[in-house]
């Protein structure tokens, strides 16, 4: 399908979760139906690569507010209760339940990614306020003389091109965003490794309704339900975190998984997963795991949402929730500018700045958490293993510890004080866990000190990340304060100059000096 107009208020590139949610949020914000919203995607149908499938309660709430929830439930999406974390398959698991987090929904949502995207696209198509064009790729971005993005050149899969004018381009095309590259936004993208996934029907889960994080193998194994099928059976997704230098190729990957990961699953899940791997025909579904420290999320006329605006290892399963929060923020800005006069951009520079400030507040926090937890769960160094043990000791110390951690992990908590206090508690437990062995009767003092030193070193290394997160939390309010102060200073200065030149100060509405550009 070809775009029907040559000018749109918003063009969204990428019709995945973040793109569809943004389109829906903006469409709902435009209650008077004055705006044209276009969403395009390269793939007719759905993206072939397997992707995120777990949404925290905050994200589920946004889906509900956007009107997707009933359709997703009908399509087989499942309410999920939290995380069950296994230090090893023989140990009791740690219950990180959503229901313990106050002020949040008690359930998140898990859904097969392809079902999710199909349902979202169908829902926005049924609403009829967003134009959806599948099979189109972005080729070029257009800018005006001031450097603001104001157009986009698209090419269809069959070679047709079309150029559109627009006030805002929303890049929602994932971690490998084409729009981001075309806009010249560079990020330090780092491929961490690969995730392989298999689907298991009716797997025996120790904690049904939970996402299981199993440790002990090279990388963490995630096991979670993704679909309630029409025949009453449940599909469970099992993902394996593999190294960047894959030790095998093709069919060899299956043997590698059987050898290196399956033994670290508890029985009888291990047998079911092994059977699913052996029976799987063709290559396994795989996707790279990428760390993309939050790039510049906004340029004049362009915003990045979802993974395009920064992503991290999927261990905290927060990518989709972050995408939904981006969509919600843009929707709020759209609603705020609902009455913007015709001829002005719907989302003006101030709206985009506010979006960026909000985006920059929670994305670094999420990335820092994912980075720290992935390193601890991987346990590749003495220090990270000590931190891992400390985390389990901390979680086992009481329900308050689990609740506070879960609030951070599920993106429900963003206060800097909570983040820093959790960091300090984990560090304290790391020292304790390093000095007290778990099994040994008389563990050598040298080993204890080595572990404690490693944990301290790691905590010290993470101080930079903590500082980044703290700055990200504090900066938006500081920016607002600073910009307000700057404006006042300019005004006073102008008033002083004016009064010196021509007597009384001019009326603000009549001859107000141009507001200096706010620092970005």
């Amino acid at each position, binding site marked *: 399908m070809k775009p029907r107009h040559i000018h749109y208020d918003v063009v969204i590139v990428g019709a995945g979760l973040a793109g569809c949610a943004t389109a829906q949020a903006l469409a709902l914000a435009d209650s008077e139906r004055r705006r044209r919203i276009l969403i395009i995607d390269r793939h007719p149908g759905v993206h072939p690569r397997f992707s995120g499938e777990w949404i925290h309660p905050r994200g589920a709430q946004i889906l509900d507010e956007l009107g997707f929830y009933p359709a997703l439930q009908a399509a087989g999406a499942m309410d999920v209760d939290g995380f069950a974390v296994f230090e*090893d*398959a*023989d140990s009791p698991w740690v219950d990180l339940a959503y229901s313990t987090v106050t002020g949040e929904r008690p359930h998140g949502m898990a859904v097969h990614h392809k079902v999710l995207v199909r349902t979202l696209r169908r829902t926005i198509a049924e609403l009829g306020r967003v134009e959806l064009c599948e099979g189109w790729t972005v080729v070029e971005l257009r800018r005006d003389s001031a450097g603001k993005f104001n157009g986009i050149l698209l090419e269809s899969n069959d070679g047709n091109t079309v150029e559109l004018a627009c006030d805002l381009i929303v890049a929602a095309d994932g971690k490998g965003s084409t729009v981001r590259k075309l806009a010249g936004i560079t990020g330090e993208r780092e491929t961490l490794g690969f995730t392989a996934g298999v689907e298991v029907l009716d797997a025996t889960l120790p904690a049904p309704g939970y996402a299981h994080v199993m440790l*002990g*193998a*090279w990388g963490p194994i995630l096991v979670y339900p993704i679909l309630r099928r029409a025949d009453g059976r449940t599909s469970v997704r099992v993902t394996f975190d593999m*190294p960047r*230098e894959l*030790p*095998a*190729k*093709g069919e*060899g990957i299956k*043997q*590698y998984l*059987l*050898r*290196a*990961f*399956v*033994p*670290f*699953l508890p*029985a*009888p899940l*291990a*047998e079911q997963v*092994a*059977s699913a*791997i*052996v029976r799987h025909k063709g290559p396994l579904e795989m996707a790279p795991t990428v760390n993309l420290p939050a790039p510049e999320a906004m340029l004049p006329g362009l915003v990045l949402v979802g993974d395009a605006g920064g992503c991290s290892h999927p261990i905290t399963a927060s990518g989709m929730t972050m995408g939904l929060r981006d969509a919600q923020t843009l929707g709020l800005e759209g609603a705020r500018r609902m009455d913007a006069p015709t001829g002005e951009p719907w989302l003006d520079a101030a709206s985009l700045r506010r979006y960026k400030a909000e985006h920059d507040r929670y994305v670094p926090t999420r990335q820092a958490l994912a980075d720290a937890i992935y390193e601890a769960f991987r346990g*590749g*160094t*003495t220090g990270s293993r000590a931190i891992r043990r400390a985390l389990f000791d901390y979680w086992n110390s009481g329900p308050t510890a689990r609740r506070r951690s879960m609030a951070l992990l599920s993106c429900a908590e963003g206060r800097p004080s909570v983040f820093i206090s959790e960091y300090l508690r984990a560090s304290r437990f790391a020292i304790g866990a390093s000095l007290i*062995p*778990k*099994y*040994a*009767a*008389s*563990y*050598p003092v*040298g*080993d204890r000190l*080595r572990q404690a030193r490693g944990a301290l070193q790691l905590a010290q290394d993470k101080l930079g990340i903590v500082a980044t997160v703290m700055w990200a939390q504090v900066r938006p309010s500081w920016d607002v304060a600073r910009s307000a102060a700057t404006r006042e200073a300019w005004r006073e200065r102008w008033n002083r100059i004016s009064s010196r030149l021509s007597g009384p100060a001019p009326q603000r509405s009549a001859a107000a000096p141009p507001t200096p550009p706010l620092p970005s």
Partner: protein
Amino acid sequence: MIACGAFADLAQTSRLPSPARLNMLHAIPTPAKHGAPTPQRQLLADAREVEGLPAALTKLQSWSDDWLARATEGIRPGASPTDRSLVAIPDVGPACEVLLADQLLRDLSPDEREGLLAWIRGQQDPSGAWLDLQGRPDLSLTAMAYWARAQGGDERTSESMVKAVRVVHALGGAQRANFIARLWLAMAGQIEWSWLPAIPAELFLVPNSIAISPARFSPWARGVLTPYLVLAREKARLHLTDASELLVRHRGQALVAPRLTRATLAGDLLQAFDRAVKLSRKLPRGPLPEIAVRRAARWIDEAQQEHGGWFSVRPTLLSLVALRVLGARSDDPRIRRGLDYLRRARGRVVIPRGVGAGREALAQGLGGTPMAVVVELIGTRPGGDATAWLVRHQLQDVGPWQARTDAPAGGWPLEAGARMHLDLAATCNALSALGRLSADDPSAAPAWAAIRRATAVVLAMQEPDGSFARFERGETDVFMRRFPWTDADLLAYGDQADATHVRLTASALVELARTGFAADDDRVARGLACLERELDTHPGLDFVTLCTLARCAGALLPEEHRMRQQVEKRIRSRQREDGSFGDLLDTASGLRALLELGHVCVQAHRAARYLVAASAAGPERFAQGPARSPGGFGLSPETLDLSAATREALASLLIYAERQARVTELRA
């Protein structure tokens, strides 16, 4: 206990592993990942297939099954020693001690006594000496063997006995023999107890976490020194035949006193300290010594394992004697179980060398059937009841090895039926065997749990320098070993840099690599750094150790890595004109190393042809080679591992056949 029927089935059937199973084997370095360069591929294309390979594989599998049947015969309860065969043969030391101790324990049947004597007689070198497994005359072995023969009634004036006495005198007399030989001499009243090192009884009251505590000795040393404390304290006396002719005397007929410490200043000081300790024993010391002896006696009770023995045969013998000294009667259940264990550790052997070479005799093994050997034999035919047996025999109880090892119970013990002592060599072999199971095997699921626990144990057994310990962490770094006692080395289990530990470290790393660990893990990186250090500092590493290093390098290091290239160069340079790398074990190890480094090259073809040709000569040829294995400990650090060459040849030719099949596919 073992499912004997299962092993009987295994022994009777001799079939090649299925192609599917072949594909499961040795999947770490594949040509896809470490592909041979183009010129080598051309060579491969030109190389002719080895004729007779399938027949050789069938034969080797059949012989391996026979060895497995023999090994498991040793585990079966109730079987007579004369019905069993030993698969790992130590020197004559344990047999001599059993014969001497029988004066007190009175357990050997006449057949057994005669069989053991035949074993000792047959092993004597024409020079009159008894040799260690390296072929060197050994004073302690010669003294003990002479004494055991004399105790058994052999004529002292016979030529062989006279020669033996001359050898003992030439080597300095029996008083210069090792600690165990002197202990027997002291118990027999031939020498003074003061010629043995003094162990203050109070040492046994020191907390386990203190460096000088006996808990920090190697498990073998602990097993020997604890009963020694009881024996020395009670001044035990056995009525053995006179052995005074073994002792060297001054001209005035006074015995030449042995030096207990090394000839250094520190040694002199320690000698003086030793005298002071012995003098202080004559002073009243309060209740502490008695408390210490009671504690040692309690330890002896607690350390008896499920199979009846202590750590191995020597600690078992001394513990039994100590129990008798402490008042246990011969019908005491602890004594009966211990004697049963000793009996199960005996079996038939063919005398490998000496005046009786080729004849059959009854030998006393160093312990029960070594689990490492059984497991490796099971690994040649994974799956089925044997795997289930293997899983059942994993360690499930907390043991002394865990004192300094922060890991849950898991892994495999030194010998079947043991429950207290982990053996990392057996654990690595078991991981290797279980790793070959196909996912659809019924025993795979319990095997995965065993693999998981064993992997945790392997990781936890790493020493701070990156090497891995075999029995207990810190086994090579015993504080008391730093004192210049002549017998101080017995307190530890080898050195961190010895071939046993280098090989063990390489094997542990190979198994970790199989389980998905890579050099990005700091533990693996430390292990690799340790191996690289040893390779640089010990240019004379033996060939089998070098081949184990090559397997480790093939699994974990890229082709351009210096250590990998260095090891490969050294291995390649060792090949002879006939395609062998030395004896059959060396050749099989060399072939396997080349294959696991990713090369099916001309050198590999030649080695494979050599092995295939050797298989035509029959199983005896594979059991003849000097396949010394550092499977021993204490005073017998090596054993003759009779099935080693068969196992290694089968494993290497199986990989070779698999690679050949891939090359054929490539050619097609």
